[in-house]
């Protein structure tokens, strides 16, 4: 099996607040195979955004990575542990933007309002020139600009020559997000992290953006980590799915396994509670009892047990289950499937 582009092992990110310790990410592990889309899905407080920030080392204080590894492999070189690198180090800055790129949730907030969108892409191209073009003469401005125009065309922005000089606030939501994708892909990264890229756009624009991402991913062979709360989008985009809840991975596996044979009670309940256009109108939805606990009030043992219809008394409230295989490529952290672990003293 080919080595994964990204291997996260037992990642822990804690926030040291005045009010207490928040274990935003508490032992998360997953792999991203090269050229594949891995979807991370979960509700608020599950830690998916913090995981993304940890990979890029942009976790804000008072948060800190306190444990685990983030192994990033570029081509055949030995993997680099991103968790060990200092956030401001030159090594990490070389990786950010060039090897790992980010498509943020709010493109308006991600673009500078006083520079044209083309300007920022040219900056990225020039900054990381030696990484996407190891040899050859230095990139001139005209060359960079024409490359940017080509990039815009490839992401489906009409009239690219004019749009290169536009400011982000002059563009519509869909165009801004495309420009953001162009910027992210400009240096041919091996890994793209998409943090809720379609949450802020309309559903018809979302369909276009998702199509674009699929197309680009096929063409360039970029691996994508796709973070979202929308299970419909995950089903359309991802090959592998990681389901998170309160900082831990509840279940992960291929998209078919997760959607057609979910094992973890949380995954099953979540799938049943989404409104769907395929159901008759005005039907009551099955819901998950209770609500997501406050991050400071994390339950003991399995984080889902207070709301779980299948909780094993005396076990689930005491110890947290480990992520163990339940299928061919499927893993779940639930005592229901690991009776031997539950029976341990």
């Amino acid at each position: 099996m080919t080595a994964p582009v990204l291997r996260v092992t037992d990642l822990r990110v804690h926030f040291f607040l005045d009010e207490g310790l928040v274990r935003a990410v508490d032992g998360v592990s997953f792999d991203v195979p090269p050229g594949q889309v891995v979807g991370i899905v979960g509700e608020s407080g599950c830690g998916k955004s913090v995981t993304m920030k940890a990979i890029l080392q942009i976790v804000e204080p008072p948060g800190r990575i306190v444990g685990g590894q983030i192994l990033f492999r570029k081509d055949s070189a030995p993997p680099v542990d991103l968790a060990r690198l200092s956030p401001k180090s030159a090594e990490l800055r070389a990786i950010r933007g060039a090897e790992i790129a980010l498509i943020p949730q709010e493109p308006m907030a991600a673009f500078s309002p006083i520079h044209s969108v083309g300007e920022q892409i040219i900056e990225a191209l020039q900054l990381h020139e030696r990484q996407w073009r190891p040899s050859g003469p230095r990139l001139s401005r005209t060359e960079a600009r024409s490359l940017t125009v080509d990039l815009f065309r490839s992401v489906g922005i009409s009239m690219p020559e004019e749009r290169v000089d536009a400011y982000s606030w002059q563009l519509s939501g869909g165009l801004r997000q495309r420009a953001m994708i162009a910027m992210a892909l400009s240096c041919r990264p091996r890994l793209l992290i998409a943090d809720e890229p379609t949450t802020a756009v309309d559903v018809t624009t979302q369909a276009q953006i998702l199509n674009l991402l699929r197309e680009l991913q096929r063409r360039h062979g970029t691996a994508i980590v796709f973070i979202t709360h929308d299970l419909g989008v995950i089903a359309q985009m991802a090959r592998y799915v990681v389901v998170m809840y309160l900082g831990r991975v509840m279940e992960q596996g291929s998209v078919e396994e997760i959607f057609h044979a979910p094992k973890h009670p949380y995954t099953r309940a979540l799938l049943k509670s989404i409104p769907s256009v395929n159901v008759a109108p005005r039907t009551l939805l099955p819901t998950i009892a209770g609500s997501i606990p406050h991050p400071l009030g994390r339950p003991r043992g399995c984080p889902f047990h207070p709301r779980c219809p299948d909780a094993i008394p005396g076990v689930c409230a005491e110890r947290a289950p480990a992520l163990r295989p339940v299928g061919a490529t499927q893993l779940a952290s639930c005592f229901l499937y690991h009776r031997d672990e539950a029976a341990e003293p």
Partner: protein
Amino acid sequence: MSATASLLEVRHLKKLFPIRRGWNRRIIGAVSAVDDVSFTIREGETLGLVGESGCGKTTTARCILRAIPPTGGEILFRAADGRVVDLAPLSRAELRPLRPQIQMVFQDPFGSLNPRMTIFDNVGEPLLVNGLRDRRARLERVAGLLELTGLRPEHMHRFPHAFSGGQRQRIGIARALATEPRLVVADEPVSALDVSVQAQVLNLLLELQKRLHLTLLFVAHDLAVVKHISDRVAVMYVGQLVELATAEAIFRRPRHPYTAALMRAVPVPDPHAPSGDVALAGEVANPASPPAGCYFHPRCPHVVERCRSERPELREVAAGHVVRCHRAEELALAGVGAEPARGAQGVVESPDHRRENV
């Protein structure tokens, strides 16, 4: 008004926002946020108003509530005493006695409650303002309302910051129901909530509607959510109403290409369902300068010459089904089915939505 007890009838509603330029702020044009919208809501039913950003659904809702004054048209409301009143031209003072009869549920659970007041004060405000000065009576009413929406009455002395988003939405619903309104306008009430919480609040609204015989105008951008709650659905695009029918009919066989495109664009939580390869091209039209003829024609896969020049009118193509499209009768557009899809979908168990085990 028809004999089947229409509660609200909106006729040719218009709302223009002027565009001002220059140092003297002279008006050079107008944005037609709501452009000739007409529909009826019957007593006890839910009308879902759906569309993307800029389509005018929120502006329509706010005009009906008279939070903003409409530029034209009529808003005929059947008041509690049986009279039919046109809300559009009324002044602030004239509206005052009607206010308790039309209430709103807001989108943002964090901005819709006054953070400096307790839950009791927040939910009791409509009661106090409308004459219920006796504190004891208010306490009992508020306690009843909180129980109705699945919250514990003893929490009424807490402040909003102590509650989660879903709980705050329940409080917002309790407040909206305080004056026993005849019409409740819900403006994207579940959009800002987590998936599992959305289901709870939607179920609550369905339950409350059955129990209290509420009439609901439900504004949303999410088609799946709208399908779960609505009896009838109205679709808006760039300020115009493009289709209106029962939920069952519109989803089974939409007549307007935009409606069909919207349905196809919604990603289905099933990896084997066809992905949206037939995504709609182009961008949503600019309401400040909409295209000539049919607003949708630049993006429509079924466009003909007539669509580019002639503006279509709203026509009835089947019983209770109106469409604004020249080709409505001849197109055979695909909808989405009502049978459960494969996999983990499907309604199985009895829900536990009302009581929150907080």
